């Protein structure tokens, strides 16, 4: 949405150094790319588009005629990480997600972190993401965020920063898997030239993880994927994961609660369900407890959950840990719960409830991005460098009226990666969402989903705003 200033140094490019040398992980690929004629690339891209259409790897667009699902543009140039880069990143992700799970457990039990004065109680109690229904409830293994999608960017000299933690119903993993499948189909020779770590086992890991989260004493747990239905924008992913795991894809109406247990309606009568991998937000899960107008949920699910007769993954109430107002405290959580220094940095964030951060921000509004803590999708956001004086003045007044509602961050120059666009190969900004599974231990398949902003200069990678995806390679030693 916002463009960088012309005077800024060029952003970190994933493939080339500032003086034009190829970075080591790309050495084999870059050589191949320069030899490959552009026509051949164009043809491969067209082939990819037609395959994605036929396979129906699409997202539904609300209000359009049925069958009009759109493709998320797929870029044929992969994003490549070295084994060493990945080791460092993965260690940081593991640490971070462990701390986040410990934080959620603490928030719904003893409130140690509040009593230690690191986070003030009203930031939790007054937060709409805090679910009092979860207070004091023990969940299997103490795991809340079984599946986490951590958005990571690179800036400066290539340092990694966490931009956002997604701990509710993170999506995108199906694109990670389909992008790999597509690359192997289009360019098998590249996989002979490069030792790319596999990602195909993600569904097995996920199933194992979900089964291990079943209520205690269930010998052979039945797992289901709960979807809002075929009209949901992420329906492809829900169906894909259910199919890959070999479990039922259910809608709310397929489930019911009887005698405290959850059942699904089958052609042979009711069948017990032990683990619900839900892809529905908390608010819609159980009309008896949350939004009563929800037709997507299962009446009584929450009572079965509270009685420990079914596991809901991710747990209810994880939103308290991925809220923008809580994000600035994640490094402190790592120190507090794990006694370690954080391996992965946050984007330096100023919390405007603190007077000195507030003063600094008001003095530097033209340099900073100011975000409303409960805003989403770019609403309630000021991009200082591109905003007009009037917009900045308007925001200054809004901040002064309620500083606790805002955080401020520097405008980051996201790294770029060469991308095949209409004009040929050109650098475009990217991010990365690795998927972290927490169960008996924490596991991450190497890589994740790389999203790319296809418009020149754009920093917006969201699929709803013209973002695309790339296959993400982690090279093996």
């Amino acid at each position, binding site marked *: 949405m916002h463009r960088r200033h012309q005077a800024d140094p060029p952003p970190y490019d994933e493939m080339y150094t500032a003086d034009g040398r190829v970075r080591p992980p790309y050495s084999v690929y870059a050589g191949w790319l320069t030899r490959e004629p552009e026509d051949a690339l164009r043809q491969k891209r067209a082939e990819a588009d037609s395959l994605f259409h036929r396979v129906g790897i699409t997202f539904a667009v609300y209000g359009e005629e*049925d*069958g009009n699902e759109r493709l998320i543009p797929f870029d044929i140039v992969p994003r490549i990480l070295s084994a060493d880069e990945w080791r460092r990143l993965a260690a940081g992700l593991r640490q971070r997600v462990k701390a986040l799970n410990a934080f959620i457990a603490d928030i719904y039990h003893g409130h140690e972190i509040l009593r230690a004065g690191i986070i003030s109680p009203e930031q939790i109690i007054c937060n709409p993401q805090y679910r009092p229904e979860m207070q004091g409830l023990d969940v299997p293994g103490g795991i809340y965020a079984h599946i986490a999608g951590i958005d990571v960017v690179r800036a400066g000299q290539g340092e990694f920063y966490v931009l956002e933690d997604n701990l509710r119903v993170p999506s995108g993993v199906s694109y990670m898997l389909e992008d790999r499948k597509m690359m192997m189909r289009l360019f098998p020779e590249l996989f002979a030239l490069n030792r790319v770590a596999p990602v195909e086992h993600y569904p097995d890991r996920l199933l194992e993880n979900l089964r291990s989260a079943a209520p205690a004493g269930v010998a052979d747990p039945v797992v289901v994927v709960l979807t809002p239905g*075929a009209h949901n924008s992420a329906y492809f992913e829900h169906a*894909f994961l*259910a199919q890959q795991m070999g479990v039922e894809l*259910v809608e709310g*109406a397929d489930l019911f609660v009887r005698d405290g247990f959850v059942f699904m*309606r*089958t052609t042979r009568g009711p069948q017990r369900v032990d683990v619900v991998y839900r892809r529905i937000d908390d608010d819609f899960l159980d009309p008896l407890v949350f939004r009563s107008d929800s037709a997507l949920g299962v009446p009584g699910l929450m009572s079965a959950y509270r009685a420990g007769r079914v596991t809901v993954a991710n747990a209810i109430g994880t939103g308290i840990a991925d809220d923008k107002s809580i994000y600035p405290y994640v490094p402190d959580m790592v120190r507090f719960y794990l006694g370690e220094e954080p391996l992965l940095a946050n984007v330096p964030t100023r919390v405007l409830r603190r007077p000195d951060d507030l003063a600094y921000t008001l003095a530097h509004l033209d340099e900073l991005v100011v975000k409303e803590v409960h805003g989403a999708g770019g609403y309630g956001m000021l991009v200082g460098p591109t905003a007009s004086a009037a917009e900045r003045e308007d925001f200054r007044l809004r901040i002064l009226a309620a500083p606790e509602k805002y955080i401020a961050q520097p405008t980051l120059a996201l790294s770029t990666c060469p991308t095949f666009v209409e004009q040929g190969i050109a650098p475009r900004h990217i991010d990365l969402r690795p998927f972290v599974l927490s169960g008996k231990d924490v596991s991450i398949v190497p890589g994740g989903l790389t999203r790319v902003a296809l418009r020149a200069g754009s920093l917006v990678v969201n699929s709803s705003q013209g973002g695309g995806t790339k296959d993400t390679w982690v090279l093996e030693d």
Partner: protein
Amino acid sequence: MLSRTADHVYWLGRYAERAENLARTLDVQYRLSLLPGQSPAEGIGWARALSILRLNSQYTARFGEDYETHRVIDFLAFDRENASSILNCLRAARENARAVRGTISSEMWETFNSTWLEARATAPSRFTARNVAEFIEWVKYRAHLARGVVLGSMLRDEGYHFMQMGTFLERADGVARLLRIRLACEATAPTGEPVTHDYLPWTVLLRALSAYEIFRRVSRDQVTPLHVVEFCAFRPDVPRSLLRSAALVFDNLGSVANTQSAETQRRAGVLHSMLRFGTLGALGAGGADAFLEDVMARAWDLNDRIGRDFLGHVVPG
């Protein structure tokens, strides 16, 4: 299997088969409309066809009594407002496949999806009422392809059985309708009185059912209405015969039987026996229509009972 999943695969089978049956029905009527000397009967033929397809009132509400061939073909094949047009059946098959894409094989989903995408993209331009024969061939070809994909890639679990039941109940219904349309057209030939049966329309019908060569090979009978109806009803070895459809419904139903389905199985057995041991000899061509109507009614009764016993449909009343 989830009842909702079974419901979707069942209707996937039904809609895919319905599109094919409609294409075959259209094939017969269209070819006959091209025959010399048929033009006075054209309107009557289409009106009969539409009424046996239960679409006549919808048609006349929109177009009056104008049964011009191209208009009717457009309505049956491409019309987006006609929920039963071939195009909409392909769409409905695809939507049902999409709802259970995690349960059926990826190849199946891709086949139904690409059929619909191609139909939607090309029906208004490449295919029109002017070259409907090409469209009919295309629909039949895609149906053959889908059938092969189902046979070659689908797990033989309950989903397969429900899809088979949907397919063969729909086929029995569609073939019975096609025969009844033909009989009805015979009964109201241009002169207004029963005519000596021309073998030609029945040959066209056999060809449209991919059964002309089989008829020639296994039957020494002449191509007469009675012989063709008997052939299409009672042969156990003809792919689109009523008996074969009823036998497959009965078999597949047996594979999914549950605690409440005994009566449904019994009724499927009755339908099967009717066709297995029946003859038309005593009924004559006049009784054939009543016989076929009875087969259709029984097929619909089975449809309702399957919905109730397995698919989570609410019992009316």
